[in-house]
C-alpha cells in the first residue's frame, strides 16, 4: 500500500495539517488501514525531503504544521495514477508455499490443510460480508475496500478449489505426474 501517494492525493485538494492527513486517510479508506502518527510524520518528512511537498518553515514541527503539494509532487501523483500498479511479479505467497511444502512432508494430508484454509477464508469473508448489512455504516470508500477484500479472499478460495481438483486428478491419473512436480522454469513474467 502506498501511503506516500495516498498522502499526495489528499494534498492535491489543498494544504493540510499532519493530523488532518492522518484522519482523512483513515476515513477515506473506511478505517480499514489505521496509520500511526509516527508513520504519517516520517512519510511526510520523506516527501518533503524529496521535494514532493513543502511546509511552512516558520511553523514548529508538530500538529500545527501545514503541508502543501509542490509541482514535483503533483507530477509524481499523476505519474502514479496513470501507470499500472506492479502486479507482474508473483508475490511469495505463504499459502502457496505451505501447500507445496505439505506435499513433501510425510504424514501431512494436503486436503486437510486446504480445507482448514478454506474454512478460515470463508469465515473471514462472512465477517466482511456481514458489514454490508449495516447500510448506514457503509460509505462508498468503505464499500470499495470491502469489495476488494472479499474479491481477494474469494480468489484464494478459488485457487484452493483448483488445487484440490488438480491433486485429485493427479491421484487418479498418476502416470507422468510426480508427487511433487519440479518447478523447472523460473516464473519470470515478461514485461
Amino acid at each position, binding site marked *: 500500500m502506498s501511503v506516500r501517494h495516498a498522502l499526495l492525493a489528499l494534498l492535491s485538494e489543498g494544504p493540510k495539517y499532519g493530523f488532518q492527513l492522518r484522519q482523512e486517510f483513515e476515513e477515506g479508506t473506511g*478505517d*480499514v488501514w*489505521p496509520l500511526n502518527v509516527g508513520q504519517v510524520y516520517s512519510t511526510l518528512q520523506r516527501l518533503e525531503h524529496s521535494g514532493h511537498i513543502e511546509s511552512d518553515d516558520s511553523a514548529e514541527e508538530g500538529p500545527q504544521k501545514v503541508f502543501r503539494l509542490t509541482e514535483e509532487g503533483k507530477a509524481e501523483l499523476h505519474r502514479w495514477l496513470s501507470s499500472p500498479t506492479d502486479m507482474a511479479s508473483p508475490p511469495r505467497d505463504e499459502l502457496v508455499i505451505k501447500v507445496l511444502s505439505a506435499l513433501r512432508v510425510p504424514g501431512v494430508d494436503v486436503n486437510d490443510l486446504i*480445507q*482448514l*484454509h*478454506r*474454512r*478460515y*477464508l*470463508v*469465515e*473471514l*469473508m*462472512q*465477517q*466482511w*460480508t*456481514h*458489514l*454490508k*448489512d449495516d447500510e448506514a455504516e457503509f460509505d462508498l470508500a468503505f464499500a470499495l475496500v470491502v469489495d476488494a477484500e*472479499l474479491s481477494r*479472499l*474469494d480468489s484464494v*478460495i*478459488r485457487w484452493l*478449489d483448483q488445487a*484440490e*481438483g488438480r491433486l485429485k486428478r493427479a491421484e487418479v491419473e498418476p502416470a507422468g505426474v510426480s508427487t511433487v512436480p519440479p518447478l523447472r522454469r523460473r516464473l519470470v513474467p515478461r514485461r
Partner: protein
Amino acid sequence: MSFLELRNVSKSYGAGSTLVNALVDASLSVDRGHLVAVMGPSGSGKSSLLTIAGSLEEPTSGEVLIEGKSLASMSYNDKARLRRRAIGYVFQDFNLLAGLTALENVSLPLELDDVSARKARTLAMAALENIGIADRAGHFPDELSGGERQRVAIARAVAGERHLLLADEPSGALDSANGEAVMKMIRAACKQGVAAVVVTHDAHLASWADRVLFLKDGRIVDQTVPPPSAESLLAPTPTL
C-alpha cells in the same frame, strides 16, 4: 426447535457398478431466522441435499423433519400440502411461468393451496412490495431483467406463510450487484423468521450465511464457527 432437520441422511442412485452415493450420513439443522449455506464443488451432493430437504426426493436412509415432524410419517398429500404451504424454492434459472405476470407467478402457488384469488393477490402484492418490485407486478417474465426475475422468484418463495426457503445457486446467473441484492433479500426474509438453506459453490454467496457447511463427495466435512464481531478484522491479521 429447528425448523428443518436432516438426521443422518444418505442418498444413493443406481446399483452395483453404477451405484453413486450422492449423500452420505448428512446431518443438518436450521432454525427460523437463520441462513445456512452449503458449499461444495459440482457433484458434491448439494442439489440432492436441497431436494431431499424440500421433500422433492426421498432419502435412501435417514430422516428429514420439518417443524419436528418426520416427512417419512406423512402421506403423499400431506407432503404436497407442506411443499405448497411451508416451503419456497429459488432456482438459478428463476423458473417463472412465462405466460403469467410477476404478480400471477407469485399468487398462483397460494391459489393452488386454496387461498382465495383475492387474498392470494393481496399476499403476492405484499411480497413484491417487500422486496421493492411492486411496480413490475403487471409485467411478464420476458419483460423483466434477470435481477428482477430473481426478485419475483424470491417473492414467490416467501409469499404467504412459508417459513423455509431453499435456494440452489440463487444468484448464479446474475452479475455481482444483482447477486448481492438477492442475498440481501434472502437475509431480510430470515430476519422476518424464515429458515433458509442456500447451496452454492460460490464463497461470495456463502459468506452471507450465519453458518457455512462444506460438502465433499456427499459428506459434510466441516463447518464455519459463528463469526466473531467484524471489529476483529481491523486488528492485526492472525497467522495460521
